[in-house]
């Protein structure tokens, strides 16, 4: 592993530790729950950053995995009465879904544009399906699916093996931050591995990678499945601070994730995390202003970002800083 990589990993771990230790002590409950939502969204952005920014696969329906993770968690936890095994189930379901969907897309040699269309369609199908599950006849085991109301009784995480010891919102925030840091570090390690380098090479030129003897389909499927799993984890955390509902699959979220990644910087990991946090903060704040539509604000920001910083926030800022440093150097 390169030195730079090691520094980035240590920095991420330290930053996460500071946030996880300090924020629950100083922030009000409402702020903390909101912060947990932000963190879960940052994980969702990270999952797309991996698939799109490094795998070169523009997945328009990353929320499919987000929602599947959430629903699988809620259904499993309600049935088992314990979150211990609900979490691994909730990670497996979106990962298997990504594996199956990816298998047909990549082994069928579907081209980029259609991958965008197919993934978007899958998330919309799930959205419509989840929306139409109102009524008593729609349930999986003990868990009612609840149609457009979702599952308001989504259980909170408990200490593994002890169903009565549910985690407080403070503890769930800490769990979320630890998850974000772990996913970031995992992604860094994956990208530094031989597998990750080939994934990036395939993004750069799939034909060349194949002519060098690499089966591009396998690598794309690998990174897509990993992205699905991380997206599912984001869904589990979201389910723990809000609750599971069809909006998790919605176009509103799938569109937003793409904006976060784009504004943060496609091809970086930290950029999309930053983009998710900043833009959510901004839209939340804009929502409190009288007479302003937060979606319009988001749209304006997207346009400005694309015009002024087409590379995204993080690469753009790095370039500006680098330029300043060179400019002032003797």
């Amino acid at each position: 592993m390169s030195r730079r990589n090691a520094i980035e990993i240590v920095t991420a771990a330290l930053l996460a530790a500071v946030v996880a230790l300090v924020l629950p002590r100083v922030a009000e409950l409402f702020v903390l729950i909101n912060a947990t939502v932000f963190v879960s969204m940052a994980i969702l952005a990270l999952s797309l950053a991996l698939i799109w920014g490094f795998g070169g696969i523009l997945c328009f329906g990353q929320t499919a995995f987000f929602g599947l993770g959430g629903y699988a968690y809620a259904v499993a936890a309600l049935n088992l009465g314990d979150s211990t095994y609900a979490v691994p189930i909730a990670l497996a379901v979106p990962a298997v879904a990504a594996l199956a969907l990816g298998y047909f897309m990549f082994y069928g040699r579907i081209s980029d544009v259609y991958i965008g269309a197919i993934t978007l369609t899958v998330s919309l199908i799930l959205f419509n399906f989840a929306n139409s599950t109102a009524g008593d006849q729609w349930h999986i085991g003990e868990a009612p699916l609840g149609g457009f109301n979702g599952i308001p009784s989504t259980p909170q995480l408990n200490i593994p093996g002890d169903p009565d010891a549910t985690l407080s919102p403070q503890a769930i925030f800490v769990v979320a931050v630890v998850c974000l840091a772990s996913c970031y570090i995992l992604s860094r390690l994956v990208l530094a591995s031989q597998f990750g380098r080939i994934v990036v090479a395939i993004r750069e030129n799939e034909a060349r990678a194949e002519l060098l003897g690499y089966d591009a389909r396998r690598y794309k499927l690998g990174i897509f499945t990993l992205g699905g799993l991380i997206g599912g984890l984001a869904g589990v955390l979201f389910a723990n601070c809000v609750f599971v509902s069809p909006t998790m699959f919605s176009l509103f979220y799938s569109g937003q994730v793409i904006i976060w990644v784009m504004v943060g910087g496609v091809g970086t990991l930290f950029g999309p995390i930053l983009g998710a946090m900043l833009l959510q903060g901004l839209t939340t704040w804009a929502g409190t202003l009288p007479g302003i539509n937060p979606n319009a604000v988001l749209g304006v920001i997207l346009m400005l970002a694309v015009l002024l910083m087409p590379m995204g926030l993080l690469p753009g800022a790095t370039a500006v800083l680098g330029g300043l440093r060179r400019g002032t150097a003797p």
Partner: protein
Amino acid sequence: MSALLEARDVVMRFGGVAAVDGVRIAVEQGELRGLIGPNGAGKSTLFKCLTGQLRPTAGRILLRGKDITGLPSFAVARLGVGIKTQVPSLFDGLSVQEGLMIALRRQHGERAARLLARAALERLGIADLADRSVGLLAHGQRQLVELAMVVAPEPDLILLDEPTAGMSLEETRRAAEVIRDLNRRHTIVVVEHDMQFIRSIARSVTVLHQGRVLVEDEVSRVLADPRVRDVYLGRQVAA
């Protein structure tokens, strides 16, 4: 002794057009074969069939006597075939060194790959480009970088599609030297339409015309053949 690479009655049809129409060639181990012909003769299509980028409509392709027809190109590459495409196909966002490491790491460990990458770059005289970003290089340099990626893993058979397209005279001269040198260890098939270049490297030449083999012979005889001149000048060939 069977040929290293063999095409048996290969046909490639696009709609009603047969771009390759029953080609039969055999390349022996150690050979340096030129595959020439005017524009539209079917050279590149045949090349794509040989490398698994296209699946021929009919006919078979054999490597060391083994049928490889229709294998995907990564599988063909794994059998020890190095392929250079007409338009340089490179990893633009990576550095030259990183690209070479991708080419080598499939078969070699980190340390061995580093040494082999160094050696390949030196062989092509572009060791000074190692840390440059591939996307920022000039066209001729890109051709050499791609050549380095293709030869670095030491494939038995190297297939080159117009390796000197867009190169300066000096770069072409160096490429010819490199290809002759490579031929000491590898069997090479070069697709070209630059006759001058073919004359300077190849010993045996196959001329394609309208999807068929027109002549196949030793290079000087082929170039002296009036039929070959005629097809290059666009005249009808007397059958």
